[in-house]
């Protein structure tokens, strides 16, 4: 490509650095050479930010909102520019998005905003994408922006400090009025998206998915089976064990094939089983105790939890392949023809252990209901509720220093926080505004609905890669179609009724912190080692390879995690936590 931004001098520098293995340094080198040219660019809009130069379009009057609605508002989108502008943006290739160039949302957005995008699509898995993006950055082959590339907070901070990524915070007041409104609706947003230097290096995807906040600790039990054994939905650990025992005894699947409770390797089971004993958010098991960062996995209460799961496993109440079964295997249990083999499962939602048929009111998945967080022998009963990890995601759009007119790209990003753009962006063109009197998932006036199941079509949306603002009210104001009951409604209701009342206080949760480069490297190593040890030992204690009732085994385990470095790990996280709290 002859018109590529080829800079021989620059690339040679990074080549040398790259050969020495200094990838990050090479990025820095490239940038220091680059920033000279782009400083001029950033100065002008910086001053423009002081005096807002854009206004929002008028609201669409046809759209109904329920009382007290907090969320995105439908407005007319105004063209951002009259002359033709083109930006180069790196995105992920995704078969459901299809060709970004011909995608329906791409065309719609270009028509509305007048901004043309030249897409650079990177293929493969998320890890593959990061490899490619790092190579591009190190080689100085940098686009105007990255969309939907999963940079971590620490990466954003690192590249932001090197001057590679633009601080979009300076443009929000002047050019991103929709986002500004969203940040007012969700006051924590700023704290969650800013780096330790108080700058904002990416546009967030705000997606207040209510049921996602409880998904790590959610489990399901078959209500038909519970009826058949003449018991009630368990509330305590003892009742839970009793129900599973009854399942096994009654052998409801027949031929001794009954699996009272199942888990699989891709969803940890400890968040469900430990919370009757102590608050446990799951990996990396960090909690805040009296303002101090602490871990859950070396406490005596954790050991009580181990004894509990060990006794379940010993009685044959948990599937033997709980740590090795994959999703296909789990589905074979759940979908087994005739009768399901499993009485309960620890999964995010039904679709992991059986097929969801939304049209059939008698479908098997409807037999399974959320099992409430259990109350332990000492009265502890938490639902691990994710206040900060779900809802605001960083890095949905990152603007680089290469971008000559960042303020235009900022407006382009902001257009995607508008209601119609959101619907088209994640759903597609098949939406319609709700009429007065039509009800949404939460039983209030609906705002919109989809007439076709959007997730089976291709090439119509951006599959949630882009900036978006889906508040809780927005999500719950989707019109309920009686003919096609989505699983969203029961998932919402059961989460609301069973998990929300038992959520831990917000100040106990460890928030998503940002680490600097050195910390990040050290943290990654410690976390990997701790994760390996804790997960392995959890499995051994559960299966009885190690006996949780044996003081020696427990103390050995505590010694092992201590040796790996719980202390330095906590010191590191404590420092990052204090920075986060500012």
């Amino acid at each position: 490509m002859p018109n590529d931004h080829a800079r021989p001098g620059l690339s040679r520098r990074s080549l040398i650095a790259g050969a020495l293995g200094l990838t990050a340094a090479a990025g820095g080198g490239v940038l220091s050479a680059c920033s000279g040219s782009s400083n001029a660019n950033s100065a002008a809009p910086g001053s423009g930010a002081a005096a807002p130069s854009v206004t929002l379009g008028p609201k669409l009057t046809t759209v109904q909102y329920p009382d007290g609605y907090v969320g995105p508002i439908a407005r007319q989108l105004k063209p951002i520019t009259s002359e033709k502008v083109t930006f180069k943006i790196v995105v992920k290739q995704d078969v459901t998005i299809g060709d970004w160039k011909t995608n329906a949302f791409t065309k719609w957005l270009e028509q509305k905003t007048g901004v043309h995008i030249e897409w650079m699509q990177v293929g493969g898995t998320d890890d593959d994408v990061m490899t490619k993006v790092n190579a591009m950055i190190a080689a100085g082959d940098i686009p105007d922006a990255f969309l939907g590339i999963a940079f971590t907070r620490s990466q954003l901070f690192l590249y932001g400090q090197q001057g590679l990524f633009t601080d979009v915070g300076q443009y929000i007041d002047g050019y991103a009025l929709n986002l500004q409104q969203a940040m007012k609706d969700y006051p924590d947003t700023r704290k969650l998206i800013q780096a330790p230097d108080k700058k904002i290096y990416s546009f967030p995807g705000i997606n207040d998915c209510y049921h996602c906040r409880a998904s790590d600790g959610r489990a399901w039990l078959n209500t038909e089976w519970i009826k058949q054994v003449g018991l009630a939905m368990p509330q305590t650990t003892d009742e839970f064990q009793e129900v599973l025992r009854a399942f096994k005894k009654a052998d409801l699947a027949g031929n001794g094939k009954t699996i009272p409770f199942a888990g699989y390797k891709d969803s940890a089971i400890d968040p469900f089983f430990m919370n009757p004993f102590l608050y446990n958010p799951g990996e990396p098991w960090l909690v805040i105790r009296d303002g101090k960062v602490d871990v859950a996995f070396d406490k005596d209460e954790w050991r009580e939890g181990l004894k509990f799961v060990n006794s379940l496993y010993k009685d044959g109440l948990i599937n033997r392949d709980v740590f090795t079964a994959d999703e296909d295997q789990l589905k074979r249990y759940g979908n087994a023809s005739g009768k399901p083999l499993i009485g309960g499962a620890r999964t995010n939602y039904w679709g992991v252990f059986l097929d969801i048929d939304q049209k059939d009111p008698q479908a098997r998945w409807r037999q399974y209901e959320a099992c409430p967080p259990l109350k332990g022998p000492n009265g502890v009963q938490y639902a691990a509720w994710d206040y900060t990890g779900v809802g605001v995601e960083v890095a949905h759009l990152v603007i680089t220093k290469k971008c000559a007119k960042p303020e235009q790209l900022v407006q382009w990003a902001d257009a995607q926080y508008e209601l119609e753009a959101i619907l088209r962006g994640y759903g597609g063109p098949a939406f319609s505004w709700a009429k007065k009197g039509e009800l949404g998932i939460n039983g209030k006036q609906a705002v919109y609905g989809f007439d076709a199941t959007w997730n089976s079509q291709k090439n119509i949306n951006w599959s949630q890669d882009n900036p978006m603002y889906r508040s809780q009210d927005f999500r719950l104001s989707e019109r309920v179609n009686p003919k096609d009951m989505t699983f969203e409604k029961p998932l919402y209701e059961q989460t609301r009724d069973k998990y929300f009342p038992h959520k831990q206080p917000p100040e106990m949760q460890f928030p998503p912190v940002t680490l600097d480069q050195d910390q990040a490297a050290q943290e990654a190593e410690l976390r990997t080692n701790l994760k390996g040890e804790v997960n392995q030992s959890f499995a051994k204690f559960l299966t009885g390879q190690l006996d949780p009732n044996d003081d020696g085994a427990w103390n050995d385990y505590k010694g092992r995690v201590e040796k790996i470095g719980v202390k330095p790990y906590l010191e590191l996280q404590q420092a990052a936590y204090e920075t986060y709290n500012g």
Partner: protein
Amino acid sequence: MSAGTTLAPDEQRLGAGAPIQDTKSDKIALACIYTALGLFCLAVLYPIVYVLSASVSNTKLVSAGEVWLWPVGFTLDAYKAIFDYKSIVTGFGNSVFYAVVGAVVATVLTLLAAYPLSRKGLPGKGIIMAAFVFTMMFSGGLIPTYLVVHELGLLNTRWAMILPTALAVWNVIITRTYFMVTIPEELVEAGKVDGCSDFGFFWRVVLPLSKPIIAVNLLFYAVGSWNSFFNALIYLTNEHLFPLQVILRQILLQTKVDPSQMADTSKLAQMQELQQQLKYSLIVIGMIPPLLVYPFVQKHFVKGAMIGSLKG
């Protein structure tokens, strides 16, 4: 196979007459060989049969664990679904293109490199060979290579899939050995006496005698190119140029992510549905071309690879 040849001298040493009765130990050895090979054959065949069956079975029954050998609820829906995704179809076409063109380019380069290196008279032969072998052990690394491709203007072109890493040194060595063994220096001298130039000799004598090694090279390179995805990941940013493997990877591996990291359940549901539907048919599509080619190259394959590698 090697076990079979070692048996032969034993039989002779026993000194029996012409048609030899298998001794007891022979029978045991043979039985062991057949069992081992049979098991091995099963281990290879079963997954293929399973995937084939699953790809033409009802997805629901597959996920209910009904399919274990033969198709249940025969349907071609999964193959029809493939055509809904343009990127899969173009990916297949691209993969065929890269495999064919890549194999031809690479084989030409290999022959041109290997033949001179097989002759005694080439000046600096040791240095050239050492340089080749050096690259087998040390590589420039990802970023310098990326920079080279970038500066050559190959990024995001089809050439990026063909030229970098076109030549495999291992193949050069096999081919060189093949030439050394099958084309003696005397033949070259005879050609020279009759006034044949080096190029003329290569074209008229060497190539016609080298069909097996050419076939082996073509096959190696084509299969290698068919299975590779990394160059595409790193060098291509245009979906229309992506080979099938990149798309396969995205569909089959992307859904393996930790579901707790999935921000949205509906997105997870979408990925699961897609994967369930396409998984097996995609694997079949990815597996068929090499399977089709192997039988035709088979007879050359044994000959070429054996001569090339044994006396290296």
